């Protein structure tokens, strides 16, 4: 009996031994949540998803801290370190909001070297694999076109903040040696334009409906236009700001034919125009009101005839907390929103009067009624004291049933205490509602914001426009001015002005240059242009001056105790700013220089 049991149970134990020992192959486990290299590079659909990811490398402008807040367009009201940027305090040890790991600011973090090269590697991996991938040539051609375009864009982003960077086109393996020197600025521009050309050759003129949002021939040519315009600009042809710097070739052209550069820039813009694929949205409005609506609508639609390259969103898009939610970020605190990128007095004052003259606080009529008769684009872009905006949230609505922006203070006589009370507007920094989100400047952003959506709870989905046709027209005009083709330039500038229901400009010479620059500032406000424009025009010293705002106050007559029905405006200094020429370019981080001894730091750092 015992024996039988012992034998029986011994068998059981040996079965266990067998199962545990004879199964070395069971250790060959494959991941359940990842794709193998082999499965990706034979499957056209997976390759497409790989390409899709590279699009993420082009930073979009709708992060909580917008690029506008790094120049003279706006002020980020919670600071979050932006004041270190606007005081030019960035150093190789402290890249602050440009650090790839900074806790916020997706837009600027992504301009960092680290993110740029991560996506560039993805493009390089693609090129190393695509030729041998068993997929249709037509498909291959399309994908290659997209990736050439994306790689061009990624390098453009790096070059526009660092100057010349190492051009890396190989997909490194662990065995490679990694130390590489920076390429010259000229090399980089040549490389980027050739990538644009390759892309333009491979890409279709338009994408099918389902693929809208992917790169097109037009996008590639438009990018080339931007790149060549930048390259022809003052900054890249005059390194005197960095006198004494041993390697001017890293940050600018050294010698060569600048006229040819302008010509190339002009040709590149013209090539886009000549495609005939794009046109201004509503180019000839019937009234100022139409113009205001048209300009606002460009940014509130999913697509217009102006769109060349854009990034779409859905409500499910979920990055970190400053990923995509322009309505929540930018509407006033009196709407339970964050009032993030508040327009500066400098930008607001730059909007012309509707007759094309300059606005001026020293003009008593204008100062008394500053928001009367301004450029229609002003009303489509800026929220100011007394501006009609959307219905307030239910709990705030009783305080303001009409939804009118209140950035003012009211002086009111208090009969009970026999003294004057100062009542703060709902959207001020003394508002009863989340006043720490209130504006310092007295303004809020209206451009891009969908007024139909209660942004405290819901997201809008309007796309970010990386490149739109207006920019190309302005690029073309800028090159023409430089080539002394002023009439041609004015024709194109005035196309933009006509659409805005603004009178034509007629100046020439330096006055024309100034009007052009001003036009670009207004038309492209908050579209991630200004940061680069003030640098390439070498006017950053004028852009990084103290931030200005306005304080509207409905004053009380001390004798009658009657509160005025119109406010008195006081221009106020809201934030200290400072310019240091080294901030024309970003520094390469100290850590990266420690890793790669062939790198040469940018000037003045």
């Amino acid at each position: 009996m015992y024996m039988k049991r012992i034998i029986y149970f011994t068998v059981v134990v040996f079965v266990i031994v067998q199962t545990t020992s004879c199964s070395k192959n069971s250790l060959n486990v494959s991941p359940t949540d990842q794709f193998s290299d082999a499965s990706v590079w034979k499957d056209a659909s997976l390759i497409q998803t790989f390409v899709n990811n590279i699009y993420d490398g082009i930073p979009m402008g709708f992060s909580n801290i917008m690029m506008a807040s790094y120049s003279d367009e706006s002020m980020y009201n919670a600071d979050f370190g932006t004041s270190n940027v606007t005081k030019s305090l960035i150093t190789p040890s402290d890249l602050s909001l440009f650090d790839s790991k900074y806790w916020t600011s997706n837009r600027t973090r992504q301009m960092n070297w680290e993110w740029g090269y991560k996506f560039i590697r993805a493009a390089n991996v693609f090129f190393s694999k695509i030729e041998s991938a068993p997929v249709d040539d037509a498909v291959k051609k399309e994908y290659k076109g997209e990736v050439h375009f994306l790689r061009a864009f990624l390098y453009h982003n790096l070059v526009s903040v660092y100057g010349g960077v190492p051009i890396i086109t190989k997909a490194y393996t662990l065995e490679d040696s990694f130390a590489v020197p920076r390429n010259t600025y000229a090399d980089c521009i040549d490389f980027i334009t050739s990538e644009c050309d390759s892309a333009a050759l491979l890409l279709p003129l338009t994408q099918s409906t389902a693929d809208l949002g992917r790169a097109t021939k037009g996008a590639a040519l438009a990018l080339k236009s931007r790149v060549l315009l930048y390259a022809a600009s003052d900054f890249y042809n005059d390194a005197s700001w960095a006198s004494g710097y041993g390697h001017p070739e890293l940050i600018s052209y050294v010698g060569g034919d600048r006229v040819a550069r302008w010509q190339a820039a002009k040709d590149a813009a013209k090539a886009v125009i000549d495609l005939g694929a794009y046109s201004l949205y509503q180019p000839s409005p019937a009234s100022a009101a139409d113009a205001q609506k048209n300009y606002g609508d460009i940014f509130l639609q999913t697509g217009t005839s102006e769109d060349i390259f854009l990034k779409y969103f859905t409500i499910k898009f979920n990055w970190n907390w400053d990923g995509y939610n322009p309505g929540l970020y930018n509407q006033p605190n009196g709407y339970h929103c964050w009032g993030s990128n508040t327009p500066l007095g400098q930008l607001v004052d730059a909007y012309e009067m509707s007759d094309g003259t300059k606005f001026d606080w020293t003009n008593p009529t204008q100062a008394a009624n500053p928001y009367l008769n301004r450029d229609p684009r002003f009303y489509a872009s800026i929220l100011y004291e007394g501006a009609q905006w959307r219905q307030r949230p239910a709990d705030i609505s009783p305080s303001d049933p009409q939804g009118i922006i209140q950035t003012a203070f009211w002086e009111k006589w208090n009969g009970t205490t026999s003294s004057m009370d100062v009542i703060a507007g709902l959207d001020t920094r003394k508002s009863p509602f989340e006043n720490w989100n209130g504006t310092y400047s007295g303004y809020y952003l209206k451009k891009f914001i969908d007024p139909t959506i209660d942004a405290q709870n819901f997201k809008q989905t309007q796309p970010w426009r990386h490149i739109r046709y207006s920019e190309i027209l302005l690029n073309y005009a800028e090159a023409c001015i430089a080539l002394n083709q002023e009439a041609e330039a004015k024709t194109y500038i005035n196309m933009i002005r006509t659409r805005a229901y603004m009178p034509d400009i007629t100046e020439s010479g330096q006055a024309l240059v100034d009007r052009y620059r001003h036009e670009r500032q207004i038309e492209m406000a908050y579209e991630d242009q200004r940061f680069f424009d003030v640098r390439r025009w070498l006017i950053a010293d004028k852009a990084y001056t103290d931030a200005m705002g306005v304080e509207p106050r409905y004053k009380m007559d001390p004798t009658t105790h009657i509160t005025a029905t119109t406010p008195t405006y006081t221009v106020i200094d809201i934030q200290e700013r400072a310019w240091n020429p080294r901030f024309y370019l970003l520094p390469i981080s100290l850590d990266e220089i420690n890793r790669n001894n062939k790198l040469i730091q940018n000037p003045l750092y």
Partner: protein
Amino acid sequence: MSFLFINNNQKLRMKKSSTTCRRMEWLKHQLRQHFTKKMLQPFIMILLLHACFVNVFAQSKTITGMVRNDKGEPMPAVSVTLKGSRAATSANSDGRFSIDVPNGKGTLVFTYVGFAAKEISINNKTVIDVQLETEEARKLDEVVVVGYGTTKKATLTGAVSVVKGKEVLQSPATNVSNSLVGRLPGLVATQPSGEPGYDGSTIRIRGVNTTGNNDALVVVDGIPGRSLERIDPNSIESITILKDASAAIYGAQAANGVILITTKRGKTGKPEITLNTNYGYNQPTVLPKMADAPTYATMMNEIALYNGSPALYTDDDIKKYKDGSDPWGHPNTDWFKATLKPRSSQYATNVSLSGGNESTRYFVSIGYKHQDGNYYHSGTFYNQPDFRSNLDARISKYISVGFDLAGRLEDRNYPTRGAGDIFRMVQRGKPNLPAYWPNGLPGPDIEYGNNPVVISTDATGYNKDKYYALNSNLKLNIIIPWVKGLSITGNAGIDKGFDFIKLWQTPWYLYTWDGTSYDANNQPVLVKGKRGFDAPQLTETFKTDQQVVLNALINYEHTFGQDHAIKVLVGSEKREGKGENFNAFRQYYVSPSIDQLFAGGSLGKDNNGSAYINERLNYFGRVNYSYKEKYLAEFVWRYDGSYIFPEDHRFGFFPGVSLGWRVSEENFWKNNVTIIDNFKLRASWGQTGNDRIAEWQYLSTYAYGSFFDDPSANPPVYWYIPFVTNGSTENQTLYETRIPNPNATWELATQRNIGFEATLLRNKLSVEFDYFDYLRSKILAKKNASVPLSTGLILPLENIGKVSNKGFEFVVSYKDRVGDFNYQVSVNGSYARNKILFWDEAPGRPEYQRSTGKSIPTDPINNPDNNLYYQAIGVFEDQAAVDKYAHWSGARAGDIIFKDANGDGVIDGNDRVRNDKTNIPRFVGGLSINLQYKGFDLSVLMQGATGAVNYISTESGEIGDYLQSFAKDRWTPDHTKANTPRTFNRTNEYYVSQRNTFWLRKTDYLRLKTFQVGYSIPPKAIHKTGIQNIRIYISGFNVFTYSPDYKDFDPEASGGDGHSYPLQKVLTAGLSLTF
């Protein structure tokens, strides 16, 4: 302590019954001596019956004998009982005893305080002489659980520490991982959070050994990977930690030490029911003191002053904040007080039943625990019902089976905003805003609707996480009768877990006053605002995980001749884990009244799911040799295979050797050294592997998601960033997860240990000391410090790192008694210091910034440079001081002076200096005192640590309040000779955004970790109730803390930002009953 107490109690109980019996025995003896005539027998019998009714019904047999102590001297008053019956007596003044035993069968139990109980089977003998050993001496015979078996403490050759379940029970903490620090030399712990359900300690055995994963392997009843935290402390028999080469038998994952938990099993005897219940409260150990409203308003004005903008608050405002004359417009709120109640309840109850006979034994236990959160109307609480059933059966003389089943429900309940959000808001709460309005309605929003007094309740919906764990184990042991000493064991453990998480997020309401509107009664008009979400939304998640462990062991034990004992163990083990999960989401619920998926809107509904699998296969063995239990040797090995590594590098061989010499067994010692009773020297060397690294390093793989995801973060971070086309079509994105490292293989731990154990003064004093020298090589680390970012590479882990870790441990304990007063004092301490010998480092880095040669940073993988600090050497008194010394660009009076460490006249990144200390203390010690006097007992554990630092970083400024410790001595234009800088605004000032030593604080502490005072009701008072034992007690945890340099937060907590749930102080009163 309570161990002693029970013994004593048994003694008392026996005394009661045996005093009468003893007299009877004496009488019987006399009668036998003098009245042997038959006529007297009935009389005697009646007498006996009357006096000692217990014994008389059966035909009994008298057993006599002599009890001696360890020195061979007769011992009086030793209790002698018949196991499982009430028959009892005690030895007389000559050490003699006599007891009547029915049928002459059973087992006699001899007990005496300070001596180990001894059981002797009667086996038809009539004379039984015994010798009792003191408990200390007995300890040497004690069996210690080691890898895949047990061994006698006397012959142990490894560095092993043991704590008994009873000692763990002295702590009222429900999470066992919090009860170990200070108890076990070599064990270091920090606690990230005190939140019910997530209050586990991070345990490090002998400190930090690798830049990678430092977690110890937890093995419960032979099965790895089970929970240390959630096991019921009442069911723990003992916890053993293997610290040196003795862990090598666990190979993979054992490199950081092994924690072995053994649960209780039934013992032969009548059924015993034990009830242990306690009820008490918990509260935060330390809460920071924040600046009050007038101080905060003043500081806001300072920010405005420094920015050149107008002051926000008038003097009148500040006066009103101070005097409280305007509670509506000028409140002065203490957010901690407003959100946290003074104390929250917690209780734990456990009932166990154990017993058995020759063929079956059982231990069955059920328990329930509850911990309430610290918030008023807390949405946070934790419940845990659990059970365990350990059964043993002897099928035959040669075959025995064990079957264990344990289950529990970890029922975690939280508000929909996490503790991080809640405490972040409590810390940030501005003292000049109301938490509640004076009429009792909740105050206004802070951000995202996060008013902590509301989001800490169930007003925001709920987040219920119910995790069901079921652990089972079937063990079969066969003694092979043909070969003496040979047995084989098969073991199959199946652990299964089910997790249901239901996140029901509903809108909530906050109230705002515009500061000007009053109603007809002149009361302020509050406006009710909906916050959080416009409509309810529901996420339901279901996860399942499974682990199957199969092992088979062959044991052989034999003693050759008299002196050569040999033990051999060979085994193989297979471990497989897998799991799946999915979740579903709906939003736009029309009403919050039905919280089920079907009731949600169909717009935006979503779902997701994934799975994982892992496999490990190992062969292992151990050989023990002992010569006369004097010379000891052990060899262990493990041949380990893990799915983590590529096929060519999959298996690793890890051997270990340890030697012991019981010097006190030598004659020269025995004859010459009398003061030291036992002395053993031991030494070990071993290697273990570590495969705890991210999976698939050897594969080139691609994953859905984006580069912005961070799967290696803790917890992993995943975003949803689809590539959208045509305005609304979401397309997947695929990214290269890393470049592969086809050579990834085992991280290797080489461990050397030398130590001694001794008992002195007739075993009253025991001393143990260990010195260790560990070397971890082939550490899997990334070369991201030297590989330029321009490569764009997402680097794999490579076997490049090398770390040394050295230290020592000691335990000294003394135990004695004076009359009825028993005491035991024990001191232990452990010191460990690690040093990076090699890892990847940027080549251009100056010496004082290099981490090589210094301690492993607190967060070596993600933030190795967090240990680089600017050296704060004071505060610029005025502008002249700024101008005089190199300074950060933009520095002004009142800012912190950063030392120009490299003397180049510029303050930049090169002036950061690496700090060698981390948040893991270098030295941890414990002092435990156990006292017992008659029915009273007291146990105390003092615990302390030194050598750790923490970095203070609160979110302060316009965004939130300041620590009062900062505010009170800050620089202002009127107070320029300050040690604390001027008021900062969030991270805008360089001395906040740049890590510097101003914020770095020592966390050295000493605390009353646990205490317990108990009283046992004299058995006399209860013996009629059928209850053997009643004890009432009060116990405390983290009762008192002294940490001179770290006062704002708990020194054991891992973070200094005040955003995590604070650690808990617990006080409970309890009752234990044994039937």
